[in-house]
C-alpha cells in the first residue's frame, strides 16, 4: 500500500485504495467528494468478472471513461485500484501499479 500512497503525488490522481475480494475497502485515500467505498466495490466487482471470464489471477485492467481513468490490479493483499483524472499521465500510473 505504500507504493499506492506515493501515487497520490502524481498530478491528476484522485485517489488510491485497496479492496478485499468481496468489495470492502481495506485502505483508501481519496480526494474530497469521491466515495472510496464505491470505487473499492467496483474494483472488486470488475476483477471478479475478469477472473470469472479468464480464470486468470494476475490481470491488470485500465479503463477510460470520458471523465476518469480507472486502474486496477489484483495483489496478494487484495485488489489495488487507482482513480485519476482523464488527462493524467497513464504511463506513469501503469508502471507504478506494476511495482506494487
Amino acid at each position: 500500500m505504500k507504493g499506492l500512497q506515493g501515487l497520490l503525488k502524481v498530478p491528476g490522481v484522485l485517489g488510491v485504495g485497496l479492496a478485499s475480494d468481496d468489495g470492502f475497502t481495506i485502505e483508501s485515500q481519496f480526494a474530497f467528494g469521491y466515495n472510496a467505498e464505491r470505487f473499492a466495490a467496483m474494483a472488486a466487482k470488475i476483477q471478479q468478472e475478469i477472473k470469472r471470464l479468464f480464470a486468470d489471477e494476475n490481470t491488470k485492467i485500465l479503463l477510460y471513461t470520458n471523465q476518469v481513468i480507472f486502474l486496477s490490479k489484483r495483489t496478494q493483499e487484495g485488489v489495488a485500484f487507482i482513480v485519476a483524472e482523464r488527462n493524467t499521465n497513464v504511463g506513469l500510473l501503469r508502471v507504478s501499479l506494476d511495482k506494487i
Partner: protein
Amino acid sequence: MPEELQHDHGALIFASLAEVYIDSGMIDEAINILKDGLMRNPSYSFGHFLLGKAYYFKGDLDAAQKKFEEAVTQDPKMVSGYLFQGNVFRKRQEYPRALEFYVKALELSPNDNEIRKLVAEVEAVAVPAPPQPQPKPKPAPPQPEPQPVIEAPPVELPKLEELKAALEETLPPFAEPEPGVEELPPLIDRPKLEPFIEPRVAAEPPSVIETPVVVEPPPVFEMPAAVQEAPPAEEIPIKAKLDQAMAKIVNLESVKGALVITKDGLLIGNYLKGREDAEENAAMVAAIYNEANSCFNFLEQGQFERGVVERKDETIYIFVSQEAILSVLTSATTKPGLIFTFCGKVLDELRTILE
C-alpha cells in the same frame, strides 16, 4: 475453484450466446459454438438441448433427436427436451410417438396450456392408432387379420371424404402445380406421410390412400421459416470496407487479431488470426464492457470509452464506438500507445462504415 468457475463461465457464455444465435437464425454459428462449448462441458444438459434445437431448425431431425435424448437423459425433468422430441416426431409424421413425448411434457408441466393444445392436436391425428398393431397383419397376410382394420375405416371414411371434398374446393390453386408436387415439402410432404397411413388402409384401394395424405397437414409449427429468412444480401460492400479498415490494425506486428462486435457480444467482423474462439472472445469482451460501463454509470463517472485488460501472455484492448466495440488482441509486449493511436483512427472509420 478456477475449474468450477471456468466450467460455469463456459456454460453461461456459450449457451446464452448460442441462444441468441438461434433466435437470430444464425443456426450454423450456434451449432459451432455449442459443439465447442459441449466439448468442455459435456454434462451440461441445457447445452445439449440447445444443440438439438439448432439441428431441429436446420432440418437435421436425426441429430436433433439424439441431442434431445441426451438432454433429457441428463435432466429427466427438462420439459422443453420432451416437447422438442415431440416436435421432431410430429415433423416426421410419427404422431403416436410425438404424442408420447408431448404427454410426458404435459405430465411435467400440467398447467402449460400450449403443451395441452399440442397434445390435443396430435391426439386428433394420432387417434387412428389401430394401425400400430399392423405389424401383425403384415407377416400374416390372410384375410382374418385385416378385419379389425376394416372396422375403423367405415367410421373415418365419411370424415376423409368430407375433408377431401373440402380440400378439393379450397386447393385447386395447389392442385395446378401437381407436376412439381415434390417441390412443396414443408406442408404437404406426401412421401413422409405415406408410411404412416399406408398400413392402416393397406387392404383398401390405393386411391383412398392418396386422399388422407393430403388431409394431414396440421403441423403449421414452422419456425424454421423465420430461420430461413436470415441470409443477408447487402453486406458485401460493408464487409469489404470493414476488412480494409481492420487490415491496418491486424497487419501490425504483435497483433494477434481483432474483433468487431456489437455491444451485446455478437460478431460483426472476425479478424483473429488462426483462432477459433472468436465467439467466446466476443462474448467476454462484451461482458467486460457491460460490467465496467454499468459500474461507471452507477458511480456517475462517465461513459466507458476504452479499456485494457493485461493478462500474463496477452493483452486485450477494448474500444467503444456508438454502435460497436472494437477489440484488439496483442502479445503482452505490444506498445499500448501504438495500439491506441492506430485504433483511434480505425474507430473513426468504423463509425462511418457502420452508420
